[in-house]
């Protein structure tokens, strides 16, 4: 089993930057093998897939097809064509809102989301609800930042047609009870979209075992290049859906006034795809599976435990997360008494510590929690105890700075 100190050496950025990078929930750093894959694609395979009759274009097409197979395997999808490449979870969710939501939601129907959803889930489905005169409902949290069974039972009803749920909250780190939610939704005939953007870097996801209808994630949060994302959909659902974006490669015949569309998966992949990025995504999957999710879990859970212990020792820190570590994953939100999170983040930055501050694209959740913004730390297996010690030292400095002035006022 490799240690975090050994794995850290796979990431060139840490050779150049002496930083504690603790914003992995926003995007992860990229290992050398992923950077090498990008270079290799452009040096050896670069051509427009599906277009050319020449050998190089066929190679690029093969890269795309093999990559699709690799991702299907990774998620345990039944068919390769259940995997649609997008640029991120946001595009995947917009595709679902427009191609599934707009066609299947009718007046009086209900769409149920958790209050923990990212704006990329909330805003597109708000648009669907408004356009179709449907109701958008939210599942709220108990005191332990979890959606309990009672909430699931009462919100998902016979009127529910679509349910959207994150596997892990990007603000609270809560591991949701998505299996229970899928079960309930299916019992009333609704489809479920699971956003696994915050869990896939930490835990595998089996689409068949979960019986999820649609799954989305931003691959750049799991060590793949920026601009890569995935949509999984059950084949029978994707086949019935109309295309999202129109253009090259997603058509069969185009006449002056009408068009017939290509079968899956091309129907949903208009225009030239980011094949180099997708090739990099496959390399990221290889990399993760070589380390092994068990090893990743061991490193990250012990770091998260250490982080929480250290944060709890600071009396001026208010944490927003469950004490139940089995329901918590690698993301920790907190605030410093009397200091705005943006000031915290800026002053940490000046001390070489990168964290996120703000509303984390989850304004409804923050409003529900009664806060304007939070500081957020998110862990990867390449982080170290030293990163966390650096964070804690820097947080103490922030508090001291502000307290000095507060006391002067008296």
């Amino acid at each position: 089993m490799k240690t975090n100190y050994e794995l850290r050496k796979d990431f060139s950025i840490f050779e150049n930057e002496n930083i504690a990078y603790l914003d992995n929930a926003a995007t992860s750093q990229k290992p050398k093998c992923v950077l090498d894959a990008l270079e290799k694609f452009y040096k050896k395979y670069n051509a427009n897939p599906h277009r050319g009759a020449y050998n190089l274009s066929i190679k690029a097409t093969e890269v795309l097809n093999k990559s699709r197979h690799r991702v299907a395997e990774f998620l345990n999808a039944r068919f390769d064509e259940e995997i649609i490449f997008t640029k991120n979870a946001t595009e995947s969710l917009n595709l679902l809102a427009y191609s599934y939501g707009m066609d299947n939601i009718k007046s009086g129907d209900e769409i149920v989301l958790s209050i923990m959803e990212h704006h990329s889930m909330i805003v597109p489905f708000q648009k669907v609800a408004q356009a179709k005169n449907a109701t958008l409902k939210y599942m709220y949290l108990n005191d332990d930042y979890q959606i309990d069974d009672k909430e699931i039972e009462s919100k998902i009803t016979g009127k529910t047609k679509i349910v959207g749920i994150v596997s892990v909250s990007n603000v609270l780190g809560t591991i949701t009870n998505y299996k229970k939610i899928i079960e309930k939704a299916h019992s009333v005939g609704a489809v479920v979209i699971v956003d696994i953007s915050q869990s896939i870097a930490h835990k595998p996801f089996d689409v068949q075992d979960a019986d999820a209808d649609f799954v989305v994630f931003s691959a750049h949060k799991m060590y793949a290049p920026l601009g890569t994302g995935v949509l999984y959909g059950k084949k029978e659902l994707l086949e019935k859906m109309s295309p999202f974006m129109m253009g090259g490669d997603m058509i069969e015949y185009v006449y002056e006034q009408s068009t017939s569309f290509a079968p899956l998966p091309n129907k949903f992949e208009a225009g030239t795809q980011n094949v180099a990025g997708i090739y990099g995504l496959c390399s990221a999957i290889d990399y993760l599976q070589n380390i092994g999710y068990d090893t990743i879990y061991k490193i990250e859970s012990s770091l998260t435990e250490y982080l929480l212990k250290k944060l709890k020792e600071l009396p001026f820190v208010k944490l927003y997360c469950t004490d139940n570590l089995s329901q918590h994953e690698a993301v920790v939100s907190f605030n410093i008494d009397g200091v705005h999170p943006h000031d915290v983040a800026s002053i940490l930055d000046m001390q070489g510590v990168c964290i996120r501050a703000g509303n984390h694209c989850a304004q409804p959740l923050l409003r529900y929690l009664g806060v304007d913004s939070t500081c957020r730390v998110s862990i990867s297996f390449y982080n170290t105890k030293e990163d966390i010690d650096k964070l804690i030292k820097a947080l103490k400095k922030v508090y001291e700075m502000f307290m000095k002035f507060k006391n002067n006022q008296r």
Partner: protein
Amino acid sequence: MDQIEEIYSNIIMERSMQAYHKHELENETCSAHGYNPNCGDDITLHIKLCDDKIEDMSFTGSGCAISQSSTDIMAEVLKGKTVAEAKEIADIFVAMIDRKPITDQQKKLLKDAVAFQNISNMPARVKCAILAWKTLKNKLDEL
């Protein structure tokens, strides 16, 4: 550490902790709302205009130390100025932040707001510093 003190200078820290002009304003003649969606700074400027003069100004809202102190200092600097003078000073402030050349005479007009001259060393926070000034300028341009 020098960089921290250069940006979070004494005056910025003091004014963010104890803003003199953070309150509602009786008899306000107009108000203006400013918001930074990325960071959540949210301020409302309360302005009392008498003829062409800013007789009084205050603000309410919430945000980081940079946005709060910048708003408070702006209210102080612009109180008693004519609309034309206030617009000119707001433009000078934005020019200073953008690192455009400004004369010593222009700098004098900024008074305590000069404290924000190094904020461009921290590009992520420029928006916080200029929020109040842009909000005011937009409002005065409407008049």
